[in-house]
């Protein structure tokens, strides 16, 4: 099992910039990035080859949500994936795509507070049939 992830140089730059302006740590930013990427229905096609950016350990990156990320990514792929596929491969691909999305969100909002406000506004209302299994 691989427990380390090396981002591309561009992603590392984006995460550092965002860290400076949001005061969120790169691992938290990475989680947002991956989630943003997962919200895009298009399948991930690219594979990250550049590994000269940040090195992030898996336990820091996913923390207590490792399994959650895995099922979300598998669900997005709509197929069963192995752990090796999940990390770092697919996770890294989502991170690459998501960091661009996150950067765009930030640039659009202009500041951290505005960006979070925008995210909050996009959260759909909880509906009755959402309360799954209750």
């Amino acid at each position, binding site marked *: 099992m691989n427990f380390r992830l090396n981002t591309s140089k561009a992603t590392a730059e984006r995460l550092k910039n965002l860290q400076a302006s949001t005061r969120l740590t790169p691992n938290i930013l990475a989680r947002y990035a991956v989630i943003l990427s997962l919200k895009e229905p298009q399948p991930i096609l690219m594979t990250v080859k550049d590994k000269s950016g940040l090195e992030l350990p898996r336990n820091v990156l996913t923390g207590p949500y490792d399994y959650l990320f895995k*099922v979300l990514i*598998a669900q*997005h792929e709509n197929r069963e994936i192995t752990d090796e596929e999940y990390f770092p491969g697919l996770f890294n691909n989502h991170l690459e795509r998501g960091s661009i999305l996150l950067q765009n969100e930030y640039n659009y909002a202009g500041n951290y507070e505005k960006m979070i*406000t925008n995210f909050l506004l996009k*959260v759909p209302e909880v509906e009755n049939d959402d309360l799954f*299994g209750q």
Partner: protein
Amino acid sequence: MKFNRLVLKNIGAYYGNGESFDLKTIGIERNVVLIGGKNGSGKTTILDSLRIVLFGSFTYGLKPDSALYLDKIEAKLNSIAKKENHTSYQVILDLEMVENLKRNQYTLNRSWTKNKKTIKESFSVFKNGQQLKEKDVELFQTKLRDETPPQLLDFCLFDGEKISQVVSRETLAEYLRQTAKVMFNVDLFENLEADLDTYLKQEKVFSNLSLEEKKLVEIEQEKNDLLMKKNGFIIEFESVEKEIDEKTSLYNDLERQFHVNGGLEKKERDLLVKKMSDIDNRRLSMMEKNRENLISIFPFVMSRALLKNVLVQMSKEAKADLKNEFINTIPQDTFKNVLGVLLDKNDDDIVSEIYMKLTGLMSSDEIMPIHKASAIQRAEVMSFFKQACEFSPKEMLNDFRGNTQLIKEVQVIRKQIEENDASSDLKELLDKTQQIQNEITTIQFKKEQMIVLSKELDENIHLKEKEYEDLKAKVIRSKKMGHVFEIATKVSEVSRLFRSMQMKKKLQQVELETARMLQIVYRKELFVTRVKIHPETFELRIFDPNQEEINIEILSAGEKQILLLSTVWAMAMCSKRRLPFVFDTLLGRLDQTHKKAIMEQFIPRCGEQVIILSTDSEINHEQFEQISKKVSHLYTIDFNSDLGRVQVSNNYFGMESNYEFSS
């Protein structure tokens, strides 16, 4: 000495060939010459001219022909005459002196010739119409200075301005000391002592003294040097203390100003800073609460839809698993066997249909497993999903909007504070205050050093004095009377004793006379019965009928002026000198009652000659009536600005129409 006539040519505002003032008075009956003039008409010029014609450069304590003196003269010359390049400027004074029981008339003529740049002074004296030779002029001047020293005349020429300065600067004691010294001739003895001292130090005498005597003189010299140094020290110390005082009050004033102008703003500023930090704290605690959510659950709230899909998929997979498990555990054959007990063996189709229907209940879909989650994993995802559903974006949204609002508020406050801080006036004030604080610290340090040095000096003086006394006793014991040294020392001591006794005696007279005059002049409510002048410090104290001391500080400026006048008058009386009094704008400060008392009581007692220079408000119609009987000559001087010169008329502001005067 008595003045008879004063002529001014091209002096001050007196332009042209000269205005002549007849100053003759007739005995004690008509002892007043009244010269009226409004401000700026040239009264003080008369006073200055009297001084200058008598003493020349000595008036200012300068040497003859010194550049500084000539500068002062230059300033006094008439400006129109200077423009027109007149060469002659003169002051002529006729005066009468009693010498060897004979009245002699003198005419003093001090004149200046002015070239383009230089001024030359010439001085001639006529005695009873005969011009004195240069050598005699010199002698006359020395005699004049000896008999009537310039300082003495200063006391008789009462310059209202100067008198109020003397009183207000609280230099009364020093003024009295100077006056007393000259008035009572004790300066002669002081000079004698100094002469003896010089004599003892002369080479010839000095070499004749024994070793011990020489040493004694040396020690005395050293002792005197130390005492001189000590005196200098005391003066410096006082000035340092005064400086500290001034600086401290300045500092307090500045600080008060800072609080009046800036202090309020400071309070405001503190309030603003507090408000700002309050808002920041509120904001931070609010954001901290949200931050926890933002770094944990919120990303998954965003992907709630996908998470729901996961759960749907998982549920499907679970059902499929259940079906498979069922099929594996109870294959169709086993099922058939179980049901075969109840049914016929031929009902295979029915059994198979029931089996299919049963398994179909468990899972209908053909499912491709994705997650293959265990029950625990499914529960975990379910629990996250629940959390994500419970998360209320509205609450956080409100917090964030509130936060933005608060940030705006903080920005407004911060701007206010910055503007306040940039205000340069207050900053300057603060800088200045700090600078003065520093200066005070420096001076205080100096003061402390001086105290230490002063103590050392005191010790040294004490030692020297002891040494001196011991040696002196020894020297005097070993020598017989008649020795030059002892004689000189004795004479010196006698002189000193005499001086102090003379001073005491005279001062007692002065005390009596002053008290008498004060009783006459002061209004009833300020009843002074006794005056005391300390013979060494010359501190003046006054007492009321109950022998309670009256603090001089509480007297008004006018009352102080009268006190000084009376004191100096008493001194003049006691010195038995024949001196003219000149009062220049003296009555300005006094009220009607005091003016009346001065007119009716004081002036008649001022001897043969009183010259009063006054404005029309000092001596108005009412007072003029009081004094007119005493007047022997009247003048009004008026500066005519059209002609650029002073015009003199033989009346006093035209008030005397009802009276006749001899001229």
